[in-house]
């Protein structure tokens, strides 16, 4: 059981990487995004293509770590484009509009992946090397260990960013009331851009770590993953970075423990959904969320 909990925590850390990006976008723009998975996946698949086939125009094959760098850069750029072309016009619209729009973005990206990279699963050696850590009976592979470390580091960095930096305060002001913030001179469009670029970059890190950890990814894989991460964000609180991490860890542990105790497939999914529903009923703002409203 201890080993299952440890395994679940490592899965939860993987969810947290994506959930942090979702919460960041929500916190800054009040838009719920489920496009993070495919944004990251697209960046990772570009990195893989350049590692296998060489960088176009140069013929140079990316080293392992290069796939992670390319994934981050490409995903951040996609985030920038999505913000400017899709999400900026929807800023003052209800959150549901943003959600539907990001669903469209995810579908477009997944279909583009099918066309460009094919339907087959793509795999690569981990960008952070192949090593394992044995903890209390559980074996954690390198990608998952790094995912835990990165999730914690990003959360700490964002905490400092929001509480100690001028731009971070500007972001908080924008989330409270973008109209007033704009009047007071806060660069609101920069805030939106920051949210999408940062969450895109984080999605790229997640895809580059999780792709090898899962043994490969294919189009639509990380959208399904994002939905689970979103469940973690809902449980933890949609406007709390630490809540996103806590909720994701809870989801990971619940999946692992229920999956190990119940042979029937889907039991872990049912358990996660039940947890989400209970949270919504008893504490709609999530465990660490400040507000329940958009």
């Amino acid at each position, binding site marked *: 059981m201890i080993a299952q909990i440890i395994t679940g925590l490592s899965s939860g850390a993987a969810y947290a990487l994506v959930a942090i990006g979702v919460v960041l976008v929500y916190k800054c723009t009040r838009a719920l995004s489920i496009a993070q998975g495919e944004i990251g996946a697209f960046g990772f698949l570009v990195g893989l293509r350049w590692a296998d086939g060489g960088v176009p125009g140069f013929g140079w094959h990316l080293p392992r770590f290069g796939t992670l760098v390319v994934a981050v850069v490409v995903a951040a750029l996609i985030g920038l484009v999505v913000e400017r072309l899709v999400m900026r016009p929807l800023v003052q619209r209800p959150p*549901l509009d943003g959600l539907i729009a990001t669903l469209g973005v995810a579908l477009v990206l997944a279909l583009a992946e099918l066309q460009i990279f094919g339907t087959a699963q793509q795999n690569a050696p981990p960008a952070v090397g192949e090593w394992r850590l044995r903890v209390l009976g559980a074996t954690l592979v390198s990608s998952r260990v790094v995912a835990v470390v990165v999730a914690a580091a990003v959360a700490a960095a964002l905490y400092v960013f929001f509480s100690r930096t001028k731009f971070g305060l500007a972001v908080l002001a924008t989330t409270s009331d973008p109209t007033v913030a704009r009047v007071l001179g806060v660069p609101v469009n920069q805030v939106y851009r920051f949210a999408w670029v940062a969450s895109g970059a984080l999605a790229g890190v997640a895809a580059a770590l999780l792709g090898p950890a899962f043994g*490969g990814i294919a189009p639509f894989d990380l959208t399904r993953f994002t939905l689970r991460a979103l469940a973690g964000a809902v449980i933890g609180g949609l406007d709390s970075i630490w809540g996103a991490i806590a909720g994701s860890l809870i989801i990971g542990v619940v999946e692992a423990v229920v999956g190990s105790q119940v042979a029937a497939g889907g039991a872990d999914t049912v358990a996660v959904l039940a947890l989400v529903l209970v949270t919504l009923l008893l504490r709609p703002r999530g465990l660490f969320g400040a507000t329940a409203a958009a």
Partner: protein
Amino acid sequence: MPIRSRPVSTIVVILVCLLAAACGARFPRETAVGAGSTAAPAAAPAESDPGVAVPGEPAPGAAPSAPAAGGATTTAPRTAAPAPTAGGGGVPAGAAPRAAESDPGPAPGVSATSVKIGYLLPITGAAPVPASFDKGARVYWNYVRDQLGGIPVGGQKRNVEIVIEDTQSDANVGKDKARKLIEQDKVFLIVVLDRLENQQAIGAFLDARKFPNIAIQAPAGLDKSQEWTFGVTIDHGVQGVLIADYLVKVHKASKLAVVHENTPVLTPGVTAFTRQVEKLGAQVVYSKSIDGQNNDFSSEALQLAGSGATATWLYMAPTPAAKLANQADAAGHHPVWFANAISWNFDLIFTVGRKALAGARAFSPWPPLSDPRTSTYQQEYRRQNPADIPDDLGIVGWGVGEIVGGGLQAVQGPLGQNSFRLAMQNLQLRPTLWNPLSFGPGVRQGGNSVAIYRESDGRWTLERDFTSSI
């Protein structure tokens, strides 16, 4: 509830529904099948009897392989065929009168020089076959046209034209595409390859329309009343027994595991496997159903490692199989991985799981690419596609082409859907690139033997030729 929280709650409820759909939540559906209905029957699994006889060995006295089209041979049809129903050409069940056995039936897609057939393949969707899959089908029929001058059918040589439609790995889309093939493209027969539950639904739909169809994957216990459906690979219930025999008797495994996708159509195979393992004195120490759409199998990998199983049957599509094997291998667990027929017995699996699947075994209805019997196929593939390298995916198209060609050649008298159905019902065939087929009255699955593969240097090689017993 505060007014301002309602939009958030609405959003979250929608997300929960998306999560349920994306994570593969399934709710059992019962569909009524009545006279004239074209609905698929309820997907209730049939319990398979591990002691059932295993057909599939060629009929005694069958002629040895001759260098005919694809090396197929046929024997004279048996006379004890059941009273036929008229070929429907798409007519719903119960609507057409039962015709005399001599009535060849309608012949859509048939001309003096050609026969048009349809293929339903999952080119996109949850469990797609690679886009190059259709090349193998076209290679065979182009070979027949260019090298053999056509298939001799009813005293005339005819070429075969094919129309390929994408089921999108969805039974409802598959049925729509089947309808299109029948009503718009006017094909003569349809070949179906898809996930088992889709295969079952599409096959039942076509059978209800009295439309001849060849099922590449054969669900367990295909009903004897489905007289228009011909399964050409091993019954999954029968296969479960054979897998148990192989892993216990050949690999001396005393502790086995089976991990399967959570779909009811796989239950007969799992049940048959478990019973046979216990009958042989071994133990299934881990049996788990999974959602094939998941990515994270770290929990299952941990449980497998802790179970002590030395042989594990991954009864699932290639994508989750590769992920599970990779994650288990990364966690230090490496049993003998095993794949059932038409699962991940393609070399493509090793591009994503070479190390994890080292030493894996599989059953297959066709010989591997490394086998000398594929030489004609490979030569033809290169001739028709000079820029490509022949792959094992194309073997499926070639082998199925041999089966269709064998069935067409076996037709007695004028070619029609009814005469084709009768020919298939009595077919004894030894294709070059497919397991031997032996049909007879009431037999819906004519191919109950398998080749046994072993992984070697990142490719499948032949460990044992077609066999129906271990």
